[in-house]
């Protein structure tokens, strides 16, 4: 009996001591010496084969053969019509007429085999792919396209991408509730659809159509529009995508099996599993442990201070400098009279030592920006003032503008990871240095959004995904736009219109370069840098990491898995 007590208590104490010592070990070894990590695994007592595997033969068998496991954010499972990140599910289970190519140079045919532009972009005629079957065996036809466009536009549905159809003839009538059918979308025959636009919009197919996932009219048309959300369909999506949804458990996972009738050919993978993660640290731990095979834009990527730790893992290919097409800036509320003097915003530009922040806090990731557009073709850097760090000049500008340095300025931050916390703290202290008394406040996203609407916003550390096209910048710098928060330059608006009048980049570039110049001078936001988003993928999936090697940037909301049917497990 006595012996038993001793053994029992020894085991308990040992377990406890082990766990008590462990965190100290991470704190000291992880940041400085990431390469020391793998050797720290006690190979002698670990039963797992991974520990003894030699680096040349990474533990490729950490996951089940033929299964691709990807992470997902919670809330996505509500159905893709209502969540931006829902497109990850759409690309697996549904298809659009076209899809953005992962090489980011235009779109490729999907359910539309080809399309023609009428006039200078006042209408498009889509030739649909024939012989495509929905996963329940019904044929895909023009009726599905007609139904889908109307349902996306229907205000009772409240689809997040409804605005993408704003240029389609009849959109206003649908929006005002006069009709539920988009008049501009008509059926020429069973496999031909004509979409008429109210304005010249030559980029309609490239910029708008990829966001519309075609839904099955034969299942959904009988459901009233206001009951579509929460409908059981979203738990067992019938689609035309590479996988067929087999299981969906809220807050847990979504599973799919290869679609044998996929129009691009049956996927080589047998299964796809989306595992839901509410906490991004949990997601990273799962990736590190080989429980999932990749990550996504919405998880926030790997924090830059942890990249080297992930690079040391043999089974992962890490993209530490993945461009996120993400201009990052201080959002300024221009409706506040004390921010209206451009010299105040200039002073903030001169006050923040962006180069040093990038080199130190951000560990060299990202690049300094002096205007909005991340795409090099959309700006002419020679035209732009570079606002080199100059605190004296900042002080002088503030003095000229009559800045009141006793005024406390609220600086909101909704990112919660350490690098972003440190970044915003550095910005605040640099602003304080020149006499702008910025005080950082951590907020939830909903709180930040509410401050935009009720006008209480002063400054916020924010970003805006523009990887797809510079035209998206209109939503944050166009007159009357919500996130323009008071900025209005009619010349900029006219240039945005000009930039969309052609599909030819050479024709469009001068317009955006001119906007770049105006945004550089007007400073509607305090431009900081273009952000990177480090991501990593397990090399046991052949095709996944390769795909991202060729992908020039991550685009918000656009997962571009359009060759997923060719991927397979080692």
């Amino acid at each position: 009996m006595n012996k038993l007590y001793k053994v029992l208590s020894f085991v308990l104490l040992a377990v406890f001591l082990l766990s008590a010592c462990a965190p100290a070990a991470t704190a000291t070894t992880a940041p400085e010496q990431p390469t020391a990590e793998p050797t720290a695994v006690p190979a002698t007592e670990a039963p797992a084969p991974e520990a003894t595997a030699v680096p040349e033969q990474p533990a490729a068998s950490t996951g089940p053969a033929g299964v691709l496991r990807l992470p997902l954010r919670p809330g996505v499972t509500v159905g893709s019509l209502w969540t931006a990140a829902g497109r990850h599910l759409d690309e697996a289970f549904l298809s659009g007429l076209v899809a953005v190519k992962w090489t980011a140079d235009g779109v490729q045919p999907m359910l539309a085999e080809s399309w023609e532009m009428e006039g200078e972009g006042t209408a498009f005629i889509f030739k649909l792919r024939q012989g495509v079957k929905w996963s329940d065996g019904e044929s895909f036809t023009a009726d599905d396209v007609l139904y889908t466009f109307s349902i996306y536009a229907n205000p009772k549905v409240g689809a997040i991408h409804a605005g993408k159809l704003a240029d389609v003839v009849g959109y206003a009538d649908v929006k005002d509730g006069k009709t539920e059918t988009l008049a501009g979308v008509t059926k020429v025959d069973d496999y031909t659809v004509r979409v008429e636009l109210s304005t010249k919009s030559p980029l309609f197919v490239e910029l708008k159509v990829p966001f519309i996932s075609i839904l099955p009219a034969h299942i959904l048309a009988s459901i009233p529009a206001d009951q579509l959300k929460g409908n059981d369909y979203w738990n067992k999506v019938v689609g035309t995508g590479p996988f067929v949804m087999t299981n969906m458990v809220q807050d847990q996972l979504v599973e799919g099996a290869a679609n044998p009738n996929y129009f691009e050919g049956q996927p080589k993978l047998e299964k796809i599993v989306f595992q839901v993660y509410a906490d991004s640290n949990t997601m990273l731990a799962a990736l590190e442990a080989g429980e999932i095979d990749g990550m996504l834009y919405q998880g926030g990527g790997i924090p830059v201070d942890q990249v080297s730790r992930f690079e040391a893992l043999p089974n992962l290919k890490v993209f530490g400098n993945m461009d996120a097409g993400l201009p990052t800036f201080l959002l300024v509320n221009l409706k506040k009279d004390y921010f209206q003097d451009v010299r105040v915003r200039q002073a903030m530009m001169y006050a923040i030592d962006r180069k040093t922040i990038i080199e130190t806090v951000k560990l060299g990731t990202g690049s300094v920006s002096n205007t909005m557009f991340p795409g090099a073709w959309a700006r002419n850097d020679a035209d732009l003032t570079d606002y080199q760090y100059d605190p004296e000049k900042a002080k002088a500008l503030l003095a000229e503008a009559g800045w009141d340095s006793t005024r406390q300025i609220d600086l909101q931050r909704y990112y919660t990871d350490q690098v972003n916390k440190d970044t915003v703290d550095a910005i605040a202290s640099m602003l304080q240095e020149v006499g702008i008394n910025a005080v950082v406040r951590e907020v939830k996203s909903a709180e930040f959004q509410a401050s935009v609407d009720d006008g209480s916003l002063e400054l916020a550390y924010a970003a805006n995904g523009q990887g797809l096209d510079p035209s998206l910048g209109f939503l944050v710098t166009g007159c009357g736009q919500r996130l323009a928060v008071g900025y209005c330059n009619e010349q900029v608006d006219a240039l945005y219109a000009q930039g969309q009048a052609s599909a030819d980049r050479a024709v469009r570039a001068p317009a955006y370069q001119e906007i770049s110049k105006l945004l550089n001078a007007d400073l509607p936001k305090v431009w900081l840098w273009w952000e990177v988003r480090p991501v990593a993928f397990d090399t046991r999936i052949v095709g996944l990491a390769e795909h991202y090697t060729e992908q020039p940037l991550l685009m918000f909301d656009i997962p571009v898995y359009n060759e997923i049917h060719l991927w397979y497990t080692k």
Partner: protein
Amino acid sequence: MLAYFIRRLLINIPLLVGITIIVFVLASLMPGDAVLAMISSDTPVTDDMIKMRQGELGLDLPLHEQYLRWMGNIIQGNLGYSFVSAESVSKMIVSRIPATLELMGVSLSISIILGLTLGTISALKQYSWMDYGFTVFGFIGISIPDFFLGMVLVFVFALKLKWFPTSGFITAGEEFSLADNLRHVFLPALALALVRTAVFMRYTRASVLEVLGNDYVRTARAKGLLQNVIILRHVMRNALIPVITIIGVNLGVLFAGSVIIETIFQWPGIGMMFINAVTGRDSPVIMGYVLLTSMIVLASNLLTDLAYSLVDPRIRYE
């Protein structure tokens, strides 16, 4: 007795209404609403779209009207629909209760078994190195927050030793199997169990020590009973009564779940549903959760009071 029971039941109704009003007001004081929580500055949404969605959800109504709307539904037995997913709130709760019950059940079992065993050992070997060891362990257990312990357990047992998975309910891509599921429940349950183990252990120790000093234990020893028989038959039986009360008080958490541990371990229970609802400003779900948990607390208080009169005939309610 019956009259007392009915009176208590009736008193609980205004209490419940009061709780819901307070929570409803507090929830509405959080900045932002369900529509604003769903949009992201990465994909800007136009003003009129936001207003339209707010109108559809009734978020533009005055607060008391929103509350009466919700209350009206409750009276008809309808917990309402999530603002975010339009799913029925009662369905959401029912689908997440089993996972929470499993996690909390396993964690309570671990802490009861460990707590009683260690507490008894401590008492029997009072002032031995084992007793001191367990006491230190108990203090540490009470002092370490469970989320920190959870992260430590993941680091040691999932990332380094690879004995257990880092998170989740089952292994992604595999068929459900009980063994796999139990492997997943172990770490979060352990993280939750430690604090309660420490509490149960200290109570057991105190209670066993008290019983050990009683005359009937001395008598049992005097008549030459085996030590094990004395402990199991005479000491434990009497010592457990106060401990069982403590365990009973802890039963409420079986349904309430743990917000933090469920989030860290991506455990699809009711705690995670609640925290997602709070960040999403999804007030029907917040209110559904609050209603459920407060009903459980009120019901268990009532049942405890009734149980006292059954256990102790001297207590009478009129």
